[in-house]
């Protein structure tokens, strides 16, 4: 990179980091939301009068 390697690769590295982080966060959130929702629905069903 003609002596500019550090600056160029740091820029591309940061870009990769930003792209991966913005992908990882919603994927992790999706897992959490689904787990919480399953629990929420199970609770709701068990509290409903007439169910068992």
């Amino acid at each position, binding site marked *: 990179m003609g002596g*500019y390697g550090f*600056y160029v690769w740091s820029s591309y590295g*940061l*870009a990769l980091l930003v792209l991966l*982080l913005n992908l990882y966060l919603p*994927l992790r959130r999706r897992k959490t939301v689904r787990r919480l929702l399953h629990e929420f*629905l199970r609770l709701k069903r068990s509290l409903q009068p007439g169910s068992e």
Partner: protein
Amino acid sequence: MQYLHKYASPKFFYVFAGKLTPWLAALTVLLLAAGLYLGLFIAPADYQQGESYRIMFIHVPAAWMSMFIYACMAGAGAIALVWNVKLFEMFAANCAPVGASFTFLALATGSLWGKPMWGAWWAWDARLTSELILFFLYIGYMSLEASIDDPRRAARAAAIVALVGVVNIPVIHFSVEWWNTLHQPASVSKMGTPSIHPSMLAPLLLMAVGFTVYFFTVALMRMRNEILERERHTTWVAQLLENES
């Protein structure tokens, strides 16, 4: 209006976005791979800046995204304010973190480009300062949004902040013309011929379109999560989860 409400119904949108995201993700990978290949292997070194100019292929699209996402956020916020469409509220709120991270990327890569070319990591130049203000606008928007418990009230308050902050967008864009800045003026102008060689313009545009498609991919993923959360009391969410388990 009735179409807006049909396609903006959370249930319809959840399913539709779920079908769309894999295609958008694939398109992102293709565009970015093509852009990186042309930018790193095909485009020649610059006659003045040597290899360092390759930072441009990240820096310029990131800076464009920082403004584009802000405009989307303020536009969606305005629509949500006027027509009270929940989906636009969610879109606006989910723009903010992605936009803030692109703003960070534009500032950081600008710094990494400024050091070897200008001899300084930072300068209080009009372009740099207005972009930093944009970063703080995103942070302010997110803090305000997060500080109000009721999501509908939070969205309304945040939308007003976003709309006020819109004045900063033309300031960023025209800063290199209005003030005598250290930052170079635009090379890719919308009117007239761009003063940049096609071999460098092609990867630049591919990266920019790639970042744009990427933004919509992750924004849709975020919105789907939020729809499930907000609609947890509805029967369609219950049915959806039951069918899965």
